[in-house]
């Protein structure tokens, strides 16, 4: 399915299990290799679940450290990416709880309509400036809408589209059933699609 937008380079399950096994026994090289492969999961979760102004780098660092300290508890069969995502989500929740900002602050800094960054929705090869502007507006609106989503919908959306987890892995990471994940994801997609299509040509 094309909705899994950003995935890490695929690693064989056997290779992954072996790395996890070595990491659990304290092999530093294996730990470093696992982090290098999957750390973007922590970066993306923290970037999308924390409000603007929150120190994402510090949050990622703490997430990785929590993961390393929890390695002995990681079952060899568990996917490292999903496990790391769960730790990152919990860490973000802790930070938000501490700051009592769970649903009040935007996720992305400003989400200024003129600062939507590069866009890939442009028709190749020579983008029409009007379409570029519309695409930027759509991206900015989607970001703003994401920041307004209820916490659970935001988490599910980020894990699905920004981290690239499968529905089952999301359910495991959030300790809910797959049906719940689907419901939240469907609602989130509905809201995001509506605002995106309003802005798109």
């Amino acid at each position, binding site marked *: 399915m094309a909705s899994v937008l950003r995935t890490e380079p695929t690693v064989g399950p056997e290779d992954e299990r072996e790395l996890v096994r070595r990491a659990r026994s304290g092999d530093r090289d294996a*730990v*470093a290799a696992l*982090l290098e492969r999957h750390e973007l999961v922590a*970066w993306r979760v923290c970037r999308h679940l924390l409000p603007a102004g929150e120190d994402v780098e510090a949050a990622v660092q703490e997430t990785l*450290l929590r993961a390393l300290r929890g390695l002995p508890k990681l079952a060899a069969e568990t996917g490292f990416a999903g496990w790391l995502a769960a730790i990152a989500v919990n860490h973000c929740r802790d930070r938000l709880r501490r700051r009592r900002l769970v649903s009040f602050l935007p996720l992305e800094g400003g989400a200024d309509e003129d600062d939507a960054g590069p866009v890939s929705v442009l028709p190749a090869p020579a983008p029409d400036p009007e379409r570029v502007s519309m695409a930027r507006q759509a*991206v900015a609106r989607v970001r703003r809408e994401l920041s307004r989503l209820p916490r659970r919908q935001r988490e599910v959306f980020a894990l699905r589209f920004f981290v690239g987890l499968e529905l089952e892995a999301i359910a495991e990471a959030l300790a809910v059933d797959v049906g719940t994940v689907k419901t939240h994801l469907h609602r989130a997609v*509905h809201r995001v699609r509506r605002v995106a299509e309003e802005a798109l040509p």
Partner: protein
Amino acid sequence: MTAWHLSDDELDRLIASGELPPERTEHVNGCLACRRRRDGLLAVIEDASGADPGDQARERVREVALAEWGRPAPRFHRWWLAAAAALLVALLLPLTHRSRQPQVAFDPEAVLEEVDTILARDPLTVLASEEVVEAVTSAPGQATEGSTS
């Protein structure tokens, strides 16, 4: 292939979980308009994700985490000390309670009064036992008797 395009709800389902009836999936595969709509939305979502951190930032954070991992967690020590202190208090509390229980309440006034009474009766009892005091106080008479005999 069914002729009509994807409804909003079908598109939401396709994007969210990919779950569509086979004939509708077949329609999407053959319909340029529906594919454009789906791909356009996915592209906006991807752009909304923003840029990932650079290699330097990733490496820096990873290395710090690995270095911290090598050190003992300070929080653990604090908790360990707190737990040990709590355990010690929990163990000592019944002991102090028990040792206090049989004691009669201490009344300094009564003690002082008793001391005063003893001193008034005979100041020497403060310095020596009753037998010694008795021996000393009765000694002059005995000595006199002994010396005279």
